[in-house]
Structures are given as structure tokens and as C-alpha cells.
């Protein structure tokens, strides 16, 4: 338990377009271990939602089970949250999302929650292109059950107990690309400068956005030999298209952006500015993204940044041909056909 409210209050307490300070976006006191990567991600989420000028109560925080899945408790207290069951956040979010298209859906999951028990739902929520931000707080282990290797633990990685992981890891970014995700990014809990704009872009994307965030487990997976430790990650991170999120109104410039830039429009009129390592990298080319990803992996580099973006795609609301009014707001007059229609049906059944 860190006892530190992951807050980021500035002395001058700046307000967003809604006139809210970041304080309005805070959550409960974290009960995670002091130094847990997940807490940093929570802080970045607050920052991103604040900066996007989204009223906190218009967000739905969805999660499964795990340390990571607890973390929605620690941001956006004014938003409803649903800490469901292990590995099933995607289905609950799908139902919620279809019910009310007007909220912003932030799903927080762990690598255990997603890549093991939740693999099926992960694949299918991608396939449906559900309009949500899916954050995997990826520590390569099962934090809450005391540190077993997860399916994203790298081959050859050494667990705290000294066992070598014999299995090839599942790369959720590559998998999401293969499954047709329309927004795929990776980041590191320790790199807020990259994470916050990526989160903003993901939340603005009208469709499924995966954010795989390496988030060291200080208690069980932060030792030498671990390939998901702070040190290892810092050393192996290769920032790919570093991202800056540009709201329609106002352009933010970040010093971190290196190389040439390219602006990609998002569905809501905003755009992301990509800073690419080399000019050939086109984040809208899926097959190339897969290739580059594999190349980095083979060189033992962890590619972070916005890896793929398909700005125009039908999301699940489009596919379902849903009305603008959220289904949850339709009332008897719209929903119930009444007795006259029933008489006609009776007649047809004679």
C-alpha cells in the first residue's frame, strides 16, 4: 500500500476546459505496492482524461481481476467502475458499451487477465472493433497471486524464485495487429511523456484501441533476470513513433518528439502527430507494422509508441446500426410495440 494518493496537483492548479482541476479526476488511495507501475499508469490516465476535457462521470472504468484490475479504484472517483471477473472485462465492456455509446470506456486489464484466461474475449473484442481503450498493465507476471509467470513473460526470463521461463511470450501488440485492431500502441509506465499522449489518442480513437503498457511489478518481477523490470525495460525500450496528441483546438508540442513527423487524423477531428524513427515507417500499414515489430523483437528491442492506426473503420456501433440515442435511454414508447401490433401478430399465428 503506497499511502500516496497518485495525485499530480500543480501549485497553480490549472483547470481544463470544463474548469476542473486534476483533483476532480482523482481516485481512492491506492492499495498497490509502493512503486508499482500500475499506479503510474493510473496517474497518466487521470492526466489524459483531464486533458481531454471529459467530465469524469462520463467515463466507465472496466476491469477484470488482478492488481491491475483493482487500479480503476484509484483514479476517477466520480466515474462508475466495474471490477468484474477474471479475464472477462471485454464482454462486460461490450455489453456496457452497446447499452450506452455516450460514455468513454476505459478498460484496465493485466497480462494474466488478458493473455491467459482472457485470451478469447481479448481476440473477440478486437474483432468487433468495440469503441474502447483497452489498457494492459503488463508486468509479465500474476501480481495478485504472488508472482507466477504470465503468458507475456519472455522466453528465458528468470522468475523471482529463479525459474527460467521456457515458453515463448505472447506479444499482445503483434496479436492485436494480426486480429485487426484499429489502434495499437505500446508504452512503459515509467514514460509518462509518451504514455499520456498515447492514452489521449487511444481515448479519442473511435474504435478499439489497445495500449500495452509495460508496468513493472516491484514486488515479484523487478529483479535482475526479469525482462519486465524497470531496469530491463528502460534499457530495451525503443521508442517507435512517439506520439503527440493534438486536440482540435490547441496544439501541444512535446520536446520528446524526434525525427520527422506525420499527422494522422482521428475520427473525432483530432489528430495524432507521429514522430518516426525513420521515414519509411508508416503507422497505417498493418503488415509493415507487424514486420517492424518482429524485427525489433529479434534485436531484443521493445518497440513502443503508436504502432498502428486505422483512422477510418466501422466500429461496433456502426456495425450494429445503432441509433445516436443510447439504447439505455430508450423508453416504453420506443421499445414496446403495444397491443395493436400484438393483435396483428396474433392474427398471423392463427
Amino acid at each position: 500500500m503506497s499511502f500516496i494518493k497518485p495525485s499530480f496537483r500543480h501549485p497553480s492548479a490549472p483547470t481544463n476546459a470544463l474548469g476542473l482541476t486534476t483533483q476532480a479526476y482523482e481516485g481512492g488511495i491506492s492499495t498497490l505496492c509502493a512503486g508499482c507501475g500500475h499506479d503510474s499508469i493510473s496517474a497518466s490516465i487521470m492526466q489524459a482524461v483531464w486533458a481531454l476535457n471529459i467530465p469524469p462521470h462520463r467515463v466507465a472504468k472496466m476491469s477484470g481481476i488482478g492488481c491491475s484490475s483493482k487500479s480503476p479504484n484509484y483514479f476517477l472517483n466520480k466515474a462508475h467502475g466495474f471490477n468484474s471477473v477474471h479475464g472477462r472485462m471485454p464482454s462486460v465492456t461490450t455489453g456496457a458499451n452497446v447499452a450506452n455509446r455516450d460514455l468513454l470506456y476505459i478498460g484496465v486489464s493485466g497480462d494474466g487477465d488478458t493473455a491467459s484466461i482472457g485470451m478469447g474475449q481479448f481476440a473477440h473484442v478486437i474483432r468487433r472493433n468495440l469503441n474502447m481503450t483497452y489498457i494492459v498493465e503488463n508486468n509479465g507476471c500474476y501480481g495478485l497471486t504472488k508472482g507466477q509467470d504470465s503468458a507475456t513473460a519472455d522466453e528465458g526470463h528468470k522468475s523471482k524464485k529463479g525459474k527460467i521461463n521456457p515458453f515463448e511470450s505472447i506479444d499482445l501488440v503483434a496479436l492485436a495487429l494480426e486480429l485487426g485492431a484499429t489502434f495499437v500502441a505500446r508504452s512503459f509506465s515509467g514514460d509518462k511523456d509518451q504514455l499520456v499522449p498515447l492514452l489521449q489518442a487511444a481515448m479519442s480513437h473511435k474504435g478499439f484501441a489497445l495500449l500495452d503498457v509495460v508496468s513493472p511489478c516491484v514486488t515479484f518481477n523487478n529483479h535482475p533476470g526479469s525482462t519486465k523490470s524497470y531496469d530491463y525495460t528502460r534499457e530495451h525500450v525503443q521508442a517507435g513513433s512517439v506520439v503527440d496528441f493534438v486536440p482540435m483546438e490547441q496544439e501541444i508540442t512535446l520536446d520528446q518528439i524526434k525525427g520527422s513527423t506525420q499527422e494522422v487524423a482521428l475520427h473525432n477531428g483530432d489528430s495524432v502527430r507521429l514522430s518516426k524513427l525513420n521515414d519509411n515507417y508508416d503507422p497505417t500499414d498493418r503488415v509493415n507494422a507487424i514486420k517492424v515489430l518482429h524485427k525489433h523483437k529479434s534485436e531484443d528491442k521493445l518497440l513502443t509508441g503508436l504502432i498502428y492506426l486505422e483512422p477510418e473503420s466501422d466500429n461496433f456501433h456502426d456495425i450494429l446500426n445503432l441509433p445516436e440515442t443510447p439504447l439505455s435511454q430508450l423508453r416504453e414508447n420506443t421499445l414496446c410495440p403495444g397491443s395493436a401490433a400484438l393483435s396483428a401478430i396474433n392474427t398471423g399465428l392463427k
Partner: protein
Amino acid sequence: MSPISTPPLMNKKVNDFVVKFANVNGSGSASANSMFAKAIFRMGIPVSPRNIFPSNIQGAPTWYEVRICEQGYLGRRAGKVELMVSVNPQSMADDVNEVCEGGYFFYDNTYPLDFKLIRDDINYIGLPLTQIVNATFNDPRRRQLFKNIIYVGSLSYLIGIEFSALESIVADTFKAKPKLIEPNVSALQLGFDEAKKAFNEPLPIQLERRNKNDGKIMLEGNAACGLGAVYGGATVCAWYPITPSTSVAEGFEKYANKLRKDPETGKNNFAIIQAEDELSAIGMVIGSNWNGARSFTATSGPGVSLMQEFLGLAYFAEVPAVLIDVQRAGPSTGMPTRTQQSDLLISAYASHGDTKQVCLFPATPKECFELTADAFDIAERLQTPVIMLTDLDLGMNEHICDDLEWDDSREFDRGKVLSAEDLDNMDRFGRYLDIDGDGIPNRTIPGTHAEKGAFFTRGTSRDEYAIYTEKGEAYQRNMERLLVKWKTAPEYLPKPEITNRAASSSSSGNGIGVIHYGTSMAATHEALDQMSADGVAVNDLRVLAFPFSDEVKAFIDQHDQIFVVEQNRDAQMKTLLVNELEVAPRDLQSVLEFNGDPISATQIREGIENNLKTDSVVKSA
């Protein structure tokens, strides 16, 4: 007509016999068969058709058993049939044996009958169906399809189906494709004429017009559930295909497409999601309901098993959900195309830990419609899953029932959902606070209010304000409140239906009572009416909901001997009665049938009569 000796003659039977069709599945017999039953329905005669189909797609034997019953008993009639219409060589040997003494075996005599199939106590009536279709049609698919129509035409002659009834059905069926009307009517006529040519008189089993079906319709239970969901305000249906529940989602889709598309925008005021599996389907349902949209799923036994974890979450976190379980014969994959009532325990006590779930038991398509619509009110009022247990027999067969009704003044009961205004006008919101003493707390929907009412829904223990806690007292208070809610529940549930056949209670005792539920109704009523007619009065109570209301306990207390009729091996309803009402198990005697066929009056009557304590018998009035 019998090839060897003269079989016994059958007395004339009007409107009271069984016709069974032996077909090959995937051969297109379904529509001809249903035309047959529908025509009888339109003649005003009670009729109950049942499909008996294999768990495979094409080429295996399949039967269609149609009971015609003047008195209106719609349960399966056990025993042999008066008329077998045999169009499947594969099953002929078995089919021949299904005919009652003096009964009729109608077959395609294009090819000679195997002599091993000859019984001398039944009548064989052959028509060269294959020859006729081959002579009439060129296209093999048409030959196949029209063969079925032709034998319906022949039956029209043989047992007296009004030709006009058949014609009206053809006209209705092909309203959208009028070109098909004429060939179908011709085929019917051809069959009629050929039969008339071949047999100088119709059979002694005959249909005669009545007016018993006024104010009635014929409908499958699953379609009725789908329609009920439309009327009940369901907007999200998440499902995964599984026999025999698939047609619930299909029914919802059909009716929603018709009744719920926005006429201006063409948008769907509903969403249907074919999930990747049942875990996902129920997860979606819970997510939608949590977020304020009425949502349901339909499945069968294996799906209910897979949904256990989520059902426990919904019970404990108090999220409404509606689940329609169309039961089939278990355990495991079991007999997926046979009926049973054997998912009671897994539903009533779904999930690990201490849980109790609300269940509904419809018996007719009309009740499928009504209880499905009600289920959404109940789920939201009680903030808990509602599991409706229907079965293959009800769900996948057409049943006669009263016209569906809807009260236009009816409003959805959303239960204790707080509006933004409510929240403004109250002190601290306590999601799990029992303010009214009924165990049902207030609920908020995400996005309602900028400052108040938000909380973290979870499957872990928390206090009245939804704050996480591991304090035993808080946990216990919550679990006890859930029991208070459980006691409140019957108030919102349909009451049992009681039929008293006994004269008002005699001094010697209060006689015999029978408890049943769901699709055992028709057969139970038939059995008890028969017994009553024979002088033994038996009352019955039909359970419509779990938890039980006081009337159930009172009924048990009021009778000296109680039988519980069920279509499962382990007497699962008895277990629930005993467990929840603290009734002594030996006071409840079971009448069980679980071989996959719908239960029949004969079985019930035997089950009761073989176990009657003479001192509890009360004569009927």
C-alpha cells in the same frame, strides 16, 4: 388393404388420435408437416405436434408426432399411434412397430414392402408417392419437396382434413411468393385425388370441424420468448448458438427487425450480438444491464454451466440479468435434441458460495411471452439475475395457447434506480444500504450525475457504501440483507396456479395434491382430470417461480399426500421445495420421467395411482 390377413377393425375415432410422420431430416418435410398440424388447428380442433429430431443435420431419421385431442389435452400421448406416415425407409422397421393394433401404416408403395415389416394386426395403405412425383416433376429438389405436400393431400382425403384449410395455409405461407401457391395447391390436390382413387373410403379416424381454437394461436415457445423480450423492453440480446435455444435469439431478431427499427432513420433500437461463447454472452448481458439497458441471453444446459461464475457475480454485485435456459436432456452434451427439466439445481443455486437465484417456469408459449417480459421487471426490481427455465418441448414445438395480450398502460418497472434529481435530494448514497427494509437497495446507472452516485461495482465484499472491506461483520450484514431480499422476492413473482378438483375438504383428510411446473402441466391436468372422472379427486399446484410464495407451502400443508411431477432423474424441484420450505422429503413423492420424451398423462397417472395411500383419497365432487 393388408397384404396377409385381415387385421382387427378400428372403431371410428373422431378428433382423438395420433398421427406420426417418419421423415428424413434435412429433406424439407418440416413445412409439409406443420401445414398438416396448422390445418387441423384451423379446423378448430385441439392439436399438438411435436418434432422428434436427431442431433445431426441431414439424412437421419426424424419424426413428427401429432396428437389430435377433442378434449384439448395438449401433452404427449404415450403409446402407439393410430396412423404412421412412413416416408423414411431407414426407420421403417421401428416405425411399423409403433402402430397400434388395428392402426394404419401409410407408405410409399413405389417399391415393394420388405416382408419382414409385415404385421398382421395393422393395416397397410400404400400410395406410389415416388412414382407420382417422378411422373409430375423433373427437378429432383421439387420431387423431394412436393412428395411431402402430396402425402398431406392424401391425408386430407384419408382422415378428413378440410381441403380449404390447407389451401388457406398455402395462401398465407406464400403471400410473398404468390407464384408458389398454385403448384402447392395442385400437389395437395394430386395427393387427395390419388388417395381417393386408391382407397374407396376414408379411414375410421376422422377429423371434424370444431370451434375450440377461437381466441387461440399456435406458436413456438422460443419465438414467444423472443417476442416477450421485445415487449419487455430488451435492447441487447447476447447469445451463442446452442440447440434448443437458438430460436429464442432468432425470434427476438425477427420481431425486433419488424417492430423496433426506427422508421425514420432505419437504425436498430436493439442490438443482437452473437458472442464468442456463453461466458461472453452472459458477461455482455451483465454489462448492458449494469449500464441501464435491458439485456438477456438464451442458452441451454452446457451454457448454464459455463455461466456459473458470472451468475455468482451478478447475484453478489446485484446486477440485473435475464437468462433463458431452454433445457435439454443432460448431463453434459447428453441428448441435445431431447427434452428434460434438469437444470433446476444448477440454476437455483448457481455459482460457488452461498447464492440463491430467481427462477421462472413457463408452461405455454403465452407464458413464455409474458414471463419473459416480466423477467426484465423482476430482474430490475430485485437487482438480480432471473433465470427462466423452459425446455425443448415447449421451445421448439408449436403449441396452441390463448391469444397474446398486452396492457398498453403498463410501464417497465425499473426498480429503485435513482435519477440525478433523486441523488441531488438525498444525503450520502449507499449502494448497498437497505433503506426500505425489503433488502433491496438503491441503484445508480453510470453517467447519471456529475458528482454523486458513482461507485465501484465488484464481486468482492464491501460495505453499505460500496467501499471495499474485509470486515466480517460488514460482509455478514450484506449476506443477511440478501436473504431479506430473497424473502421479498415472491411479492414480485408470479403466483402458483392452483386447481382444486376435490370437493371442499372432507373430515377424513384433505386428499391428494400434485405439484408440477413447466411443460408437465398439460399431461398433469389430463391425468388428474381422468382420475377425477374416475372418482379420485386430486388437486394440483403449478409452480411458476422460485423462490416459492407462501401458497406453495400452504398447499403442501393442506394435503395428506403430495406428488411432485418432474422431468428429471433426481427430483430437483422436490429438492428445492424441501430445502426452501422445510418440508419433510418423505411427504413429497416423486413422479419422474427423464428419458427425453415429454411426459405423458399415462405416466403421471400410473406414478400417482401406484403410490396412493388409500386414506388420503378424496372422492371427486
